[in-house]
């Protein structure tokens, strides 16, 4: 009994946590006549998944939304890594004037949510005629102070002796930063990559502000367009769309579960 009890409680909780995912996939496979059947039986009476997914993929440019999501997330991640890694390396291993100030600014900026910067950035992009571009969707996130903080914490533990030896051997500072120090922090890089991609794939606020052109919408905005257009008429297709949009991040998380959770742990406690 004692051993069984925690599993029972956890199982009940997990059932509630997972119910939306289960219901989403189940409904996406059901025929319209069966949609309002409240049974949770996993096998639909008539398999209608092909029609639902076909409609979700064709009534709105779902493939386009996904591609936009990939482009935006990849662009953001690449620039974030390219700017954060050298900065974190400099903060952790190089003495330069203003280092303390920069570190303080980084930590200060961690407290400022993106939503607080949205208005001036939006006005600037509007004035520059850059709304409805991929650039506008990516630019506020080009600098990740979180990445600088995370990499800084991880680079610090890299032994200075190895860096010194590498310098003696004629390694350039760039090579030391990217090929030695970053290689020692690959788990942090993996954790941050999942973090960044999950956050930006799922973000609605900023795309809703700078994108009005359907052809440029990332998945969450596309989902919003889609559910507005469907107005509740076809739940099966709506759930198929939701599944298509949610699945990549769930897969991404399942593949990188360990490093993602380690990344979260590193940010918080200790």
């Amino acid at each position, binding site marked *: 009994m004692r051993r069984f009890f925690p599993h029972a409680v956890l199982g009940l909780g997990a059932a509630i946590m997972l119910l939306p995912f289960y219901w989403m996939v189940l409904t996406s496979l059901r025929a319209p006549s069966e949609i309002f059947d409240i049974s949770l039986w996993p096998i639909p009476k008539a398999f209608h998944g092909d029609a639902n997914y076909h409609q979700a993929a064709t009534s709105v440019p779902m493939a386009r939304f996904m591609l936009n999501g990939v482009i935006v997330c990849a662009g953001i991640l690449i620039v974030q890594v390219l700017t954060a890694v050298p900065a974190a390396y400099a903060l952790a291993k190089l003495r*330069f004037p203003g280092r303390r100030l920069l570190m303080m600014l980084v930590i200060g900026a961690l407290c400022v949510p993106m939503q607080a910067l*949205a208005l001036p950035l939006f006005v600037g992009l509007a004035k520059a005629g850059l709304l409805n571009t991929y650039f506008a969707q990516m630019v506020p996130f080009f600098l990740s102070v979180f990445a600088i903080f995370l990499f800084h914490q991880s680079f610090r533990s890299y032994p200075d002796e190895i860096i010194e030896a590498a310098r003696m051997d004629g390694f350039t500072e760039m090579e030391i930063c990217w090929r030695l120090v970053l290689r020692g922090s690959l788990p942090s890089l993996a954790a941050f990559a999942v973090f960044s991609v999950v956050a930006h794939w*799922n973000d*609605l606020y900023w795309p*809703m502000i700078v994108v009005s052109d359907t052809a440029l919408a990332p998945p969450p905005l596309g989902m919003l367009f889609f559910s507005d257009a469907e107005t509740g008429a076809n739940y099966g297709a709506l*759930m198929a769309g939701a599944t298509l949009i949610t699945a990549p991040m769930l897969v991404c998380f399942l593949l990188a579960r360990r490093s993602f959770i380690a990344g979260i742990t590193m940010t918080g406690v200790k």
Partner: protein
Amino acid sequence: MTAALALPARRPARTRTAVKGLAFAAPAILLLVAIYAVPMIVLTGFSVTDYRLGALDWHFIGLRNFADAASDPVFVRALVNTLVYAAIVIPAGVFLALGVALLVHGRRRSRAFWETAYFLPVTATLVAMATVWQFLLHPTLGPVNALITWLGFAPVSFLGNPALLIPTMALIGVWQVLGFNMVLFLAGLTAIPKDLHEAARIDGARHPIDRFLTVTWPMLGPTTMFVIVTTSISAFKVFETVAVLTKGRSGSETLLYSLYLEGFEYANTGYAAALTLIFLGIVLILSVGQTVRMERKVHY
């Protein structure tokens, strides 16, 4: 190499590191200025004007935007809604996560499974999942109400009754934040030395609840603080569920949603800037203590 030989080379080497350091940090510094510093200054500037995006002229109006916010029934309602939302999400999101973490912590073989099951909502696209919840909570067609009627209660119109809109969105908020908090608590629990529990047992804390109160709970103090702070900040940023489920109808707008409407739908740039500063002020108050703590942890 002798000390005498090494000395002359030292100064230029130090200058070179300084130059390299600045060069390495330069892209980040430039972006920090362009994305954080300049926008913050511009935002503060907007907040004391009556600027509307697209308007040709604007006037300095001092703090009138802030005074207007205080007497704007929509903004006050949005603030109250956000507080109600936070008042549900923070305690439920923190204590349920602690409970789950305590149960998961004791599992060995099944730990990875539970971790994944509870964490999945954190990674899910909230826009899509809010649509799913809308369906699940449907008064006549959804399975949740089917269960409620089966248990003999009257069906609940979660998204039809204005009084239930904010609590319903808060439940979805708890659902999404729980796994994140659980992971933080699990990390905190792992950091507690095992012999502390042994010592407490020897000192007479026989019952697990006694040991929880004497050892686990005090040791989890810093983690709990962190979890409360991050949960509060994310509660104040609630946006997606409003955008999907209600679009602010029936008086269900939240802080960020009304800010979005003023700034980006109605182009009231000056007024929205004032609202943004109020929003930022709240978030900063919540996060400042945490930052000071973090800064102490960083070694330069």
